[in-house]
């Protein structure tokens, strides 16, 4: 294209010389300017920036990280460059996942692992990130294409697979465990998993994997009517896992027909998806770079612009067994956690007491310990205790009912091969 434009420029030049009438010159000049403009556009389209070795805070137009490094100068982030050490896995590269991946890429994240089995469709064009010319490509390939152009410093790994199948799940687990690039305390190779999937089954699979690996993750979702969404931080053992509470339809017994209109495909808006992706990545940055408050749950209701937050404790009767194991580990680590918290408090307190706030005490005011301190600490040790006057509406549950022991004697056939043959025989005719 550049060669063609160059020839066009030459032709215009010779035309200008050949024309004796100077009245035509302004028009030719205008044409020449247009060709120049196109030449510049063509040039910028082909140049791809080279990798950057160190993140620089130097304020020049050519530094892709100057505005990010400014976060340090503003006192928001202590050490922004640490972001290059982090690995984040994004499961589901759809309306939320792809935008989250782009945001993290532009922030200069160290490594991104992308999982999806779908291809790009024209029906996806109402959302951000994917372009019409990518229709037919796998979402992972299309994402790698765009992301590596935006920021070649990011290490991208793409996995085109369905994590709910046995084979897909094994590859998924293996990729999370791979510690070649980075090592974390819990023995995985990623710092955070972001779930950006669109169905219950896949969320349960991410939950299963993260509970087994003791891997902190964040869940995100946009409602089917596209006007609300949420993000949630899940720390195995410490906060509720995705299986700790049953889905609304199961818990409340409402007919799901009232929640979802039959035969209507899910709606989606680039706005809601963009907002949820933004909330998700913001929480991710706060979690990784250690600034601000990491939200345990943040809802978004776009109709009323309501952003509820809350925290959820794990369910001691969760149906997911690795979740129960993590809960136990978390309980056992409590003394160490308390000691660390106490040491931190004391360190802070000693800093404060070094200089008395008031030099004189005209009225002899002194701070005395609460009389009921013993009582309150007692109440705190059993987290279930309620203040006096309050009672729980429902009795506390007993242990799970053990399923009845299968009566082996009731059915004499208990050989898998024999059962398989029986079904085959039934299938044969």
């Amino acid at each position: 294209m550049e060669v063609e434009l160059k020839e066009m420029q030459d032709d215009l030049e010779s035309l200008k010389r050949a024309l004796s009438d100077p009245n035509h010159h302004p028009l030719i000049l205008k044409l020449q300017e247009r060709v120049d403009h196109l030449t510049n556009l063509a040039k910028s389209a082909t140049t791809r920036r080279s990798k950057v070795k160190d993140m620089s805070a130097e304020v020049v137009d050519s530094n892709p990280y100057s505005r990010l490094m400014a976060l340090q100068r503003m006192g928001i982030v202590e050490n922004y460059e640490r972001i290059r050490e982090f690995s984040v896995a994004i499961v589901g590269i759809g309306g939320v996942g792809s935008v989250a991946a782009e945001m993290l890429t532009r922030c200069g994240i160290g490594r991104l692992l992308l999982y999806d089995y779908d291809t790009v469709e024209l029906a996806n064009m109402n959302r951000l990130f994917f372009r019409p010319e990518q229709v037919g490509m796998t979402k992972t390939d299309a994402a790698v294409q765009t992301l590596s152009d935006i920021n070649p410093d990011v290490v991208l790994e793409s996995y085109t697979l369905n994590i709910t199948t046995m084979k897909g799940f094994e590859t998924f687990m293996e990729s999370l465990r791979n510690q070649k690039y980075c090592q974390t305390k819990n023995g995985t190779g990623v710092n955070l998993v972001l779930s950006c999937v669109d169905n219950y089954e896949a969320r349960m699979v991410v939950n299963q994997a993260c509970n087994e690996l003791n891997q902190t993750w964040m869940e995100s979702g946009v409602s089917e009517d596209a006007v609300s969404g949420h993000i949630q931080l899940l720390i195995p053992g410490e906060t509720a896992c995705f299986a700790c509470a049953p889905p609304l339809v199961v818990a409340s017994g409402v007919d799901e027909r009232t929640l979802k209109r039959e035969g209507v495909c899910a709606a989606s808006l680039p706005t809601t998806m963009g907002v949820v992706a933004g909330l998700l990545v913001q929480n991710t940055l706060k979690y990784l770079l250690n600034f601000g408050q990491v939200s345990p749950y943040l809802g978004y209701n776009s109709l009323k612009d309501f952003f509820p937050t809350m925290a959820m404790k794990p369910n001691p009767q969760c149906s997911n067994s690795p979740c129960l194991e993590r809960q136990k580990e978390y309980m056992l680590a409590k003394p160490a956690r308390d000691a660390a918290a106490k040491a931190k408090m004391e360190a802070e307190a000693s800093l404060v007491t070094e200089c008395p706030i008031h030099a004189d005490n005209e009225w002899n005011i002194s701070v005395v310990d609460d009389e009921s301190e013993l009582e309150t600490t007692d109440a705190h040790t059993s987290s279930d205790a309620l203040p006096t006057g309050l009672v729980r509406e429902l009795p506390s549950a007993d242990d799970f009912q053990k399923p009845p022991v299968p009566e082996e004697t009731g059915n004499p056939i208990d050989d898998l091969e024999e059962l398989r043959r029986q079904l085959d025989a039934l299938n044969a005719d």
Partner: protein
Amino acid sequence: MEGWDPNTKSTLTQIPLLTTKAGPRDGPAWTQRLKEEYKALIAYTGMNKSNDNDWFRISAANPEGTRWTGKCWYVHNLLKYEFDLQFDIPVTYPSTAPELELPQLDGKTHKMYRGGKICLTVHFKPLWAKNCPRFGIAHALCLGLAPWLAAEVPILVDSGMIKHKDDAASSGES
């Protein structure tokens, strides 16, 4: 279970319930679960045959019993429409139901997810979740696939999206 026809209800009560809560990653417990799955399927298939309501064939496609393939059919206006049926047992089974696939109908109806997975969200998933781990493959076919076929096949035929194999052959020849 309100809104289900008495036939389906009575059939359902006769399919043996399962007791072992185990998925394909649970080793010996999965083998036990697989045995229960087979018993339920054998009972259900036998019951369909004796009631002259035979409508599917399904068998494990691998020794681990994690992939299943077969056929299902539906009779509409005295014509039989047959489709390939396949599904994987998800890693989180039985907490999550298997996603039943009819690959030949992929793209022909919007009551389907990509890859020909039939939409079970409304009529079946809540039931499955409430009855975990007592429901198995046989229950998924009885309460998930059968009503879907009954609702969708007539619409697909009437709208011309699918043709009977004899019609398709004759129109192909002409």
